[in-house]
């Protein structure tokens, strides 16, 4: 194969990997939208909050240290050396469950039966709240996140692919980030677990029932509120996974919450209600934007990825207005 073709394959492959990273964020949106019809604007901030909490536990930060120090003139920062990553993750998941319960109790319960845009707005309020709360709790400085996932270019893959190029060509192998490979593995595991969970457990079946028809689910005795708490907890867990993967790359800081913007085109393309849609949408967006940037980008000045993702989603929507895997819109008068 000539180096040009290999380069295109490299771009494709990395596009797929980037797409998986977008899908991880989009998954959380889909879960909540499916079960409650809420477009959860706070998903990105939840990822930030979960990652902040994880690092806080790992490094043994005292929550609200800055606030306490200002109010009482004390000088607290740490309560110890921190803890094992695994325990920290478990504690963070527990905290996200508590958070889900609070959201249901204080906000969602009072907004049952409102129009989607009102619920959307409520999650915006939630996003503001958590943004301030997370910073207040753990501080706004940048934090290094390391849970032991390896990262960096893969030597093995470089060696394997180098020989694909013709003898004597100036080619030094294909690049792939080990972290992205791990992200793929984790995403696949996550989707399989979620599918098994929703197919074979009682709660999972209840979830699907609620997603199908709220009122019918209520009549057969499924508690909507419990379901909502469960769904938000799962979304919190997915947010934690997304936060870990993205946070390992860039450190944990405010910008982590902006990854939600990369998930939006994925979500729209895949359809709001489909878990496979989130994955396939992510792959299409990832590959599409990387290929466009590779082929057309240099001609028109680069940095095209942000808008091209939306244009690509738009093109798909022109043919399938409900997204690739979305439920068919049936309009009755």
């Amino acid at each position, binding site marked *: 194969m000539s180096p040009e073709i290999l380069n295109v394959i490299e771009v494709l492959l990395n596009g797929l990997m980037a797409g998986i990273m977008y899908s991880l964020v989009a998954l959380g949106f889909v879960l909540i939208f499916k079960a409650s019809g809420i477009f959860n604007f706070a998903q990105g901030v939840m990822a930030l909050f979960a990652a902040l909490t994880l690092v806080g536990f790992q490094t043994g930060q005292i929550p609200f240290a800055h606030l306490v120090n200002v109010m009482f003139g004390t000088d607290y920062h740490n309560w110890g050396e921190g803890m094992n990553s695994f325990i920290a993750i478990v504690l963070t998941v527990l905290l996200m469950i508590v958070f889900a319960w609070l959201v249901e109790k204080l906000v969602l319960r009072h907004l049952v039966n409102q129009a989607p845009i009102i619920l959307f*707005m409520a999650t915006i*309020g939630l996003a503001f709240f958590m943004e301030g709360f997370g910073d207040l709790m753990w501080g706004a400085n940048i934090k290094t996140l390391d849970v032991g996932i390896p990262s960096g270019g893969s030597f093995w893959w470089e060696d394997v692919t180098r020989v694909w190029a013709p003898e004597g060509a100036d080619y030094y192998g294909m690049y792939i980030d080990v972290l992205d490979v791990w992200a793929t593995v984790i995403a696949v595991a996550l989707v399989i677990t979620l599918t098994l969970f929703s197919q074979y457990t009682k709660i999972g079946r209840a979830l699907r029932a609620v997603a199908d028809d709220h009122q019918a689910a209520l009549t057969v005795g499924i508690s909507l509120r419990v379901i909502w708490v469960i769904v938000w907890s799962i979304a919190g867990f997915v947010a934690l996974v997304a936060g870990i993967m993205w946070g390992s790359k860039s450190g944990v800081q405010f910008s982590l919450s902006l990854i939600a913007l990369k998930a939006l085109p994925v979500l729209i393309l895949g359809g709001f209600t489909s878990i496979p849609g989130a994955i396939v949408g992510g792959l299409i967006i990832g590959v599409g934007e990387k290929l466009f940037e590779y082929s057309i980008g240099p001609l028109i000045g680069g940095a095209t990825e*942000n808008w091209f993702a939306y244009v690509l989603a738009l093109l798909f929507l022109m043919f399938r207005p409900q997204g690739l895997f979305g439920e068919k819109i049936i309009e009755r008068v």
Partner: protein
Amino acid sequence: MFYRESGDFKTSYRGDQQMFPIFLDRWFVITVSAFAFLVVPFLINDYWEKSVLVPVMVWAMAALGLNLLTGYCGQLSLGTGGFMAVGAYASYKLTTSFPEMNMFIVILLSGGVTAFVGVLFGLPSLRIKGFYLAVATLAAQFFLVWLFNKVPWFYNYSGSGMITAPERFMFGIAISGPNSPPWATYLFCLVIVVVFALIAKNLTRGRVGRSWMAIRDMDIAAEIIGVPPLRTKLSAFAVSSFYIGVSGAMFFMIYLGAAEPTEAFGIDKSFLVLFMIIIGGLGSILGSFIGAAFMVLIPVLFKNIMVGGLGWPTDLVAHLILILIGGLIMFFLIVEPHGLAQLWRITKEKLRLWPFPH
């Protein structure tokens, strides 16, 4: 007790159809306008102009525009920031190419250019609905900002891509630029906002507004009774983008005076305006103003109380403000999901019957 509509008889169709049919409403609006036009200009200083009144008017204008589209016609748009950028860059190009052009004409033409761009990006709305439509407007948002950042013609080939508003005069008084007196810029914005608020109010009462609302409430039904979806949706996009373009031009020429596309017209601006109309009230002219005032003034108010009044550290205050705004948004939505304008409407209902609630 004071506020009532009984005894307010109409003897002609004309009287019945006026914009504010209730006597007290009418006088309230006239008094507020008179106060804004005749008293405020003599009291205003730099701080009130740049931090309070002009921003509120600029954002109210944008919120009006988005409310016409989203609140009245039911088409969700997240491209407000991009459309504001179109208005801002159009005004920049116009005023630097034709330095003698009257500022009102510059602003109106900028709105016109934006209306044209808005219609282009509104075309997909014929096929795509609801949240999915957000993608078309988001494409507009990101593409327009990228375009203004990339093509040097838009920023007159300046080194860094910043555009700076040149000094322009009306009746010999600077309207834009650093030496413009606060009262002049304030009055300039006020005239535009009041005129266009009245136009918006009348649009929504007339045939056009009714067809928008028909499409919003159920587009298929509206189509069957003879409302053409193509013309109606695109007219909503055109009018809405016009307003947003005017707001963008004011934002750049009068309020900021310098801008770059990525920061001044980013996606967060689109969300900000959407927050305004939801908090203020979808499908309400008054709501657009209340929402804009809420989102602009609450942070300033909290900041002044907590930093200026109580002397707390600025970073703590910034975090607390976010928490408080988030909390307030959720609180208001729980108390009244239809926005602050609805609260006002309910208060009016109560006043009407007070003190005999039954």
